[in-house]
């Protein structure tokens, strides 16, 4: 079923500069798979080499953290919003 995945500002560069992407998925895992198969550069930012979600990236279904639901097995229903919320450190911006 169609669900909306909200892409955070730091990762939009790897997702065609879009704020959100609509995917077809029944679980959070499927939604992220679908997203990263469309945007392959996003994958390394979301998943570590072990294939697990990185510990500085949280994923929410609506307002609930999937770590406290069924993680990537969390079921989605039509109209759910999946949010990717990475850690950001800025107060000002450390320049390189």
């Amino acid at each position, binding site marked *: 079923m169609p669900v909306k995945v909200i892409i955070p500002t730091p990762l939009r560069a790897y997702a065609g500069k879009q704020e959100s992407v609509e995917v077809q998925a029944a679980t959070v895992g499927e939604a992220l798979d679908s997203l990263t198969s469309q945007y392959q550069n996003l994958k390394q930012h979301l998943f570590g080499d072990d294939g697990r979600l990185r*510990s500085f990236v949280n994923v929410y279904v609506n307002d*609930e953290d999937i770590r406290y639901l069924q993680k990537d097995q969390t079921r989605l229903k039509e109209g759910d919003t999946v949010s990717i919320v990475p*850690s950001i*450190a*800025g107060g000002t911006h450390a320049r390189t």
Partner: protein
Amino acid sequence: MATKIGISAPATGEQPVTLSNEEVLRYSRHLIMPEVGMDGQLKLKRAKILCVGTGGLGAPLGLYLAAAGVGRIGIVDFDVVDRTNLQRQILFSSGDVGRPKIEAAAQRLRGLNPDIQIDTFKTKLTSDNALDIFRDYDIIVDGTDNFPTRYLVNDASVLLKKPNVYGSIFRFEGQITVFGYPDGPCYRCLYPEPPPPGLVPSCAEGGVLGVLPGIVGAIQAAEALKLIIGKGEPLVGRLLLFDALGMRFRELKLRKNPDCPACGTHATITKLIDYAEFCGIRGEEAPMPQNNVPEITPRELKSRLDRGDDLFILDVREPHEYQICNLGGYLIPLGELSRRVNELDSSREVIAHCRSGKRSTEATVFLRNAGFRKVLNLKGGILAWSDEVDPSVPKY
């Protein structure tokens, strides 16, 4: 050791706290609200808040806390005001460029409210001084700008059982919450680990809308004031996300992780650690670029161009940076280089440059690996070109 530089105004000490007639007038718009009133205003006067960082977030924080009459405000910063700060760090004036932030900030806050005490800590917050600096304060407000200090502020706050009012920003987006509240989550419950340095968005994607830290810092100030007067619903267990582009606030649930190494039932962090190491960073900020990349200095480049050598200048910055200033180079942003490498002629000598030399170092390594034999990195980028060759090129 904490280096306490200056303490202004009489300490509130042990004597009963009252308001002078001038203070009653100053705070009258608080006093006439039942949610604050005399009781709340005296709580504010007795309160001690530490602001870590006096940058974009620290500016509105410091100003509003001082204006509100928080009796003692500590500020920690080691930096010096530079011109690029003025776009958002509204504590500072043009005349402050080059001054230590802590001095300019203290002067501004004392000017705003001479009845309060400003403690200044002109130092970098470290594992050695954090507990000493934090100990005297009721509430810590985190206005820092990097992962090691964020984890340090968190762990020190958790160890001392002090609330930590957290705000962070990136471009158009902010995150705000209150950590370290009794039974509430901490930063490590939200993010157990920081990103490795390589995955932190680079300067190519960086930047911040000047007003964004103003909004986020003002929300942090509101939360700190609410915690003191004990009114309303604190932003505990909730992560507030703010998107200035869409002009939307969203709220996510934030739970205390029972297995959290800092605040969980079997916490393993019982003292402060080496946060640079924890964040995978040695030394200052980003890791140094590989030092075996062939380079050319701006002066060498200038003399070779003057000689008429056939050099291909490759600019790997973003188009909006090219508009600020350029060396007339051929523009391929670093992120597009692998896809567009066929636009380059590997028989020609290529000089890659960016703003400071970091992205072009990556580009040089990439091109060498792709079979380009004659690629040199412009050392120090267009900034160094401006310093050493042509000061008419603006620096940004």
